[in-house]
């Protein structure tokens, strides 16, 4: 049987303007966790955050707390199977959403300004420090934002919103330097 190929929804979606670069994120394993997740640390290899809008993890793996009982784990290193708990876990549930989301890295000194084209949240460093995350809106699309450095954000949305989200990101990037 021929090997089945992946077609990425963010393929070729990169853009650069003065002070802002948009690059598509590589495929990642994503798991939505709900419930009491303390034991998931064994699978993740680190403790999950306990405050909404906070993340834990390190390069290549992030756990984002999006709601009172909801976490999003994004891992670019491990496979889907590595990150799903066994069938006997009852304290929490895990759903594989690796292919549901797609994303971009928006970076550069004007990244914050570029996102301000469509995101009403306060993204200034003091309000949204490195490691902060949020499920929020970007224009008419729902996105998850994660600040990975002072000048860099990971922006994720559902895959079918990719053309719209990337289109609006480009508008933001074009206007950020003006």
């Amino acid at each position, binding site marked *: 049987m*021929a090997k089945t190929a992946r077609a990425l929804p963010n393929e070729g979606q990169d853009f650069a303007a003065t002070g802002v670069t948009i690059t598509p994120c590589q495929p990642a394993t994503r798991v939505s966790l709900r419930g009491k997740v303390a034991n998931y640390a064994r699978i993740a290899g680190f403790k999950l955050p306990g405050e909404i809008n906070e993340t834990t993890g390190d390069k290549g793996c992030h756990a984002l707390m999006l709601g009172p009982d909801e976490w999003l784990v994004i891992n670019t290193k491990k496979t889907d199977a590595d990150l799903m708990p066994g069938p006997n876990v009852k304290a929490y549930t895990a759903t594989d959403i690796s*292919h549901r989301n797609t994303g971009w890295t928006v970076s550069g000194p004007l990244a914050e300004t570029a996102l301000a*084209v469509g995101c009403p949240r306060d993204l200034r460093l003091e309000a949204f420090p490195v490691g902060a995350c949020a499920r929020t809106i970007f224009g008419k699309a729902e996105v998850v934002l994660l600040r990975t450095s002072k000048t860099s954000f990971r922006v994720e949305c559902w895959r079918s919103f990719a053309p719209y989200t990337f289109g609006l990101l480009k508008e933001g990037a074009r*206007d950020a330097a003006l």
Partner: protein
Amino acid sequence: MKTETQPHRVQRGSLSRARAVEFTFDGKAYGGIEGDTLASALLANGVHLVGRSFKYHRPRGVLSAGVEEPNALVGISRGNARHTPNVRATVQELYDGLTAKSQNAFPTLAMDIGAVNDLMSPVFSAGFYYKTFKWPPKAWDKVYEPFIRRAAGLGEAPTEADPDRYTNRFAHCDVLVIGGGAAGLVAARKAADEGKSVIVADENPTFGGWMLCDSDARIDGKDGPAWAAQIIADLKGRDNVTLLPRTTGFGYFQQNMVALAERITEHMPNPDPDLPRERMWQVRAREVISAQGGIERPLVFPGNDKPGVMLAGAAQTYLNKYGVAVGQTIGVFAACNTAYAAAFDLYEAGCEIAAIIDHRDSVEQHLLDQAKELGIRIIAGASVAKVEGRLRVCAMQVKRHRQEKQEHFEIDALIMSGGWTPSLHLFSQSRGKPRWDADAKRFLPGISPQNLTCVGLCNGADTLAEVFEEASGGTYSPKIEDDVSTEGGMVGACATAGPDAKSKAFVDFQNDVTSKDIRQAVREGMHSIEHVKRYTTNGMATDQGKLSNMHGLAIAADMLDAPIPQVGLTTFRAPYTPTTFGAFVGNAKGALFDPERRTPIDAWAAENGAEFEPVSHWRRAWYFPRAGEDMHEAVDRECQTVRKVAGVFDASTLGKIEVCGPDAAAFMDKLYTNGWSKLKPGRAKYGIMLREDGFIYDDGVVGKLSDTRFHVTTTTGGAPRVLVHMEDYLQTEFPDLDVSLTSTTEQWATIAVQGPKARDIIAPLVSGVDISAKNFSHMSVVECEVCGVPARLFRISFTGELGFEINVPADFGLDIWKQVWARAEPLGACAYGTETMHVLRAEKGYIIVGQDTDGTVTPHDAGLSWAVAKSKPDFVGKRGLMREDLTAEGRRHLVGLETVDPKTILPEGAQIVADPNQPIPMKMIGFVTSSYWSGTLGKSIAMALVEDGFNRVGETLHVPLEDEIVEVKVTGTVFYDPKGEKIDG
């Protein structure tokens, strides 16, 4: 520099050394200077006549020098698509090649036939809409409405789509300062000193406000422009301050959200098309400081609207900022002291001051002394009784109060000041209630419910010392010399525009409302200012009464002999000044108007010639026409191919929700009408979801993957609301259930393979499971591999044929579709779209929620009683179903319809009657919900909701259409394979 064409330019103001530009007005070329407004450049060329008034078509000139301008509204054109009507010439910055046109005049501005309205003014008095057009009723359509429509609205809208870009930016700051005059700049500096992040917005191209127009005041020895330049430079140098010129704070919303409109290219001769034309700022500020300043009031006297009559502060602005003298021999009509400053400045610049007429009986000694020194005559206790001149003022008649005798002055401009009105717009928009300052006869900000502070003239500070004190919180008190206070003035009509006056004294210049109109409205019973406003249209033009509200209010109060606050103040509403639709639309146009969602397989459909249709936000393949086929032929072929061979369909848009957790089955039992606890893992079931009231909300097939995990599917359009509905009940009604809900719509690409050869097509691609008829029966689900990728394979059918739905992780969807297609095509199968899907399901009587149901249909009405569990103690909608009217006889039931002539296809939505011969209006007993041509059956088929339909099967009913009445027979809803044998293939 074309100074020869600018005879009124004087060596004064900051523009005197700037670059020359050329522009045209009504086709005539003029010279101006960079930094001019269109109004200042026209005045420099001696052009006062710039427009015709809205109702009476009276010749009008430039009245003000700012956003409050009611008269000088022009059309600015950069080609057909970039024509902007009603631009205020007083704020339009001049650029090289600017093309402006006057409005509301035909054939020419100087000779306008519409001016006949002025003579007919008794007909157009207050409330004329309500009176004149009442009778005869028939005249409304033919005469009155067309007339009003033609008369309504000023200027011409552009005829082509707007080619420009607009953009949006959200921003957050500690302090947002609206207004960059003396108060705003000082307040911004104070906040910046405290380390706060500050945004300062000013509607003008340069910060400084009135300081750029004032030639008198000295602050620590510096004149206004020098003082402003210093503080602006200071603010510019700070990292925590953002200065936004050409930016209007026009709307104040909840929780200190303030909307700003920034004009980026309006002043450029050839803007880079890549630049956005405007940018909307949505600023969330911890604190807002309004330093909006004030607006000078005109005086209400006969002929106060003639070209050449102008606000004194405007004349001073044109002189001191733009270097333009508005006349040679100037009359001054004052009710406050600032007009004297304007008069003295004009005198100093070489103009002759005919006289200063003061409406007040006494004038302060220092003004008398200064006037005497300059040889300027002051007539106190007098009013202008008449202004002469048609297209430009040429003389004024002055009448002393309580005397009959009038004095005549030849003039070519008349400047006036009725005092200054604090701008409460943003304060009022913040839901603050203004308070009445009885001594100064003005409204001032009271307490705002939001974190808003008003400083400067908008808060009633009349002197620079007070302004600085307020804006700096007492920390800035420089030495101030020769400041002119803005206190004083009058509200209401002048002595010469009293109740007996015959001539028109204008209160609202843009809407042509006179003092007589206000009085008439009161006489006719309008006692609240809200009624007076609507009856007369005072303050209802695009300037929103910036100049007219206070006068209108005072005249009404005078008529009613009531104090002004008792008559009321109309509410200020956003936007502060007219804001373009472009600014509101921002980036949301073209592809960014709304997200268009596409499936992972969309690209294949596009390459293979699919026609698409929108389904909620999705773009879905509608049908796949082959060369020469129309839609009807393509759908016919697709339908028959699926029934005879097989078809492949992209069902990825189906909503999918993963319901998991220990109580997943218990939760499903609550949310769906049928039972899920007893369903075995590996089995799937059709489920109906009701609302609390018992009506169908959504439906779909649900697969039970394990005791703790369900794969729920919903309708394409219903996916978001079903998840919300589930989440709502989980959180509010069943919080004890340990379940989680996750949208997985986009995790999976779904490929439906339907038809007798479906199994042959997919079998070689599936591994890890036996999908034979025996071991993988209808309504099964299994986790397996398809094309080497983990998949969820369903055996289900929405066509009535043997069918499978392959769910694979979405990134693999396209490739697996291609692999399925590579198997399907050689076997003679087709790809089909949503239209064929609709026909095939209708042939089987499968409903589509939202098409065959409309929110008033119960499962029983839809013939789905079998899917409602009788034994379950509770589910959402169970009690609703027991309501008397939901169990009553004779409800509308979903039935099939066959037209007597099998070739007739009923229109969907057509009404159904029992007796076509009854008189109109007929009793309608139902309507057609779905209707198609069935190529397989060789006849049309339809479904309909019909009163007592289940008991009418076999009856003949009628569908009255526009030109015929179609006879139909009521049938069951299953038209094809009623025994359901095909599905078990």
